[in-house]
């Protein structure tokens, strides 16, 4: 982890606060180029907040994130499902084409080459025939597939995923996991916030176990021990109790 040459993201004492309460505390470490990392931890551990910090979407209260000269614009980011307005009148193909934005620019035209690529992406995620379907008509699983098609379209070397399997069916989880493995095989760097411990143990080589602070960070087999998991639970519980004792720190809202 000390090898800065191989690191694509290096965090130095990162602190993110929400209403003056730390949501992510003193996180130091690095993510290696081409690694496949899970961010695990109990609810309210600050996992999504840390991912947003990597993406530059929330300000740091202290510390710094070295992105190796890259801008977060070069990253592809999948937010949690409820963060996008699903009732918006837009089709699957138009949503996927947004992934071409970093290449076409805000005002640039989207050529027929990009359209062909978008259709290929839709095919890859198993949504063939749904290109013109309004997104409001998709199931939760199909919608997540469409967002993965947009991620493929972005063609980023660093991909950040927030709860990619929450609220999707088993078949979709299997397919999307296949896409993530394919990205890993193409030596893209993938970081995913995940809930499913069994899935992490099976398919994610690296894990960052978070409970506001880093509990453990490294090879998954060494990180996801029952001892570490209990410690993470205890830390989150203790912190919630403290927050409860000081009502100015609303525990439940923090770090979401």
């Amino acid at each position: 982890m000390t090898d800065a040459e191989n690191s694509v993201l290096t965090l130095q004492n990162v602190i993110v606060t929400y209403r003056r309460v730390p949501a992510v505390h003193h996180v130091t470490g690095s993510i290696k180029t081409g690694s496949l990392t899970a961010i695990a931890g109990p609810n309210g551990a600050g996992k999504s907040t840390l991912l947003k910090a990597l993406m530059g979407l929330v300000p740091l209260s202290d510390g710094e994130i070295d992105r190796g000269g890259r801008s977060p614009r070069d990253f592809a980011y999948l937010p949690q499902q409820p963060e996008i307005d699903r009732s918006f009148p837009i089709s699957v193909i138009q949503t996927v084409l947004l992934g071409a934005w970093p290449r076409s620019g805000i005002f640039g035209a989207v050529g027929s080459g990009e359209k062909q690529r978008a259709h290929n992406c839709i095919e890859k995620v198993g949504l063939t025939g749904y290109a013109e379907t309004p997104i409001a008509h998709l199931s939760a699983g199909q919608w997540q597939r469409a967002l993965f098609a947009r991620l493929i379209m972005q063609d980023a070397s660093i991909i950040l995923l927030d709860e990619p399997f929450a609220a999707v069916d088993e078949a979709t989880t299997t397919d999307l996991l296949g896409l993530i493995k394919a990205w890993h095989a193409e030596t893209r760097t993938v970081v995913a916030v995940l809930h499913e411990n069994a899935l992490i143990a099976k398919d994610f080589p690296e894990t960052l176990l978070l409970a506001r602070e880093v509990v453990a960070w490294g090879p998954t087999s060494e990180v996801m021990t029952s001892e570490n998991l209990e410690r993470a639970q205890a830390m989150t519980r203790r912190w919630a109790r403290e927050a409860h004792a000081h009502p100015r720190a609303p525990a439940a809202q923090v770090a979401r």
Partner: protein
Amino acid sequence: MTALYQLIAAPFVDFEFMRRALVACAALAIGVGPLGVFLVLRRMSLMGDAIGHAVLPGVAVGYIVSGLSLWAMSLGGIVAGLTVALLSGATSRATGLKEDASLAGFYLASLALGVMLVSMRGSAVDLLHILFGSILAVDDDGLLFVVSVATVSTLVISVIYRPLVVECFDPVFARSVGAHGTWVHAIFLGLVVLNLVAAFQALGTLMAVGVMMLPALAARFWSEDVSHIVVIATAIALVSSFVGLLVSFHFELASGPAIVLVASAVYLISIVAGARSGLIARWLRRPHYHEPHEVHR
């Protein structure tokens, strides 16, 4: 044939004030049609109403300073509208108060200030004129102003269309690719203020809000593609203006309310008969979901 001519063409052929009214309404419809669609998509449907009220103190100051001068009153209205829009936006960003809530606070204060200013110098009749306008008495300057604003508005919307759509649909994505939504939002609100001020002499700001919002709400029932919705909404606004003017001419009714009531009728029809999500379409589609052969296919 002559009856039809008398019904729909003669009023405009015979009377100049009707032609002027038609041009002003058409310009207004083209200007505000797309804006209404984006207000609905941003869940800010009541924003237009609030801005319509918020321009009043500026218009009143313009009136106090230089009488019934179109330019002084318009300038005042634009300043007041922009101030309220920007203050409420800045407040919600700085304090976390929801934007519609902070807007409600500022526009009510602005409206009260406006009513107080008008009552110090004018009469209730003036106030009614400002809020409701009179399309049948649009002068050259007023016409030029409405048409210019519609032109600028259409050009600006076509330039910022893509960032505006993405900012409404998926603001996190817009930020993640480095397109900061703040300026898009600010330009958009500026256009809303400009159009409503331009409308004040013709339809009055409050009636203009009707031409902005009702077609946008109605269009939502006819399509699930944002670019089509923009076109449909503008078309509904144009047709409502044309029909509303004729209704007001033939039945000697107030023109502004007639236009807005026609738009309301289109809205009601769309709720019931809209092709995409109207009540009839929903009712017809329902049994489809339960057809057994669909499942086995």
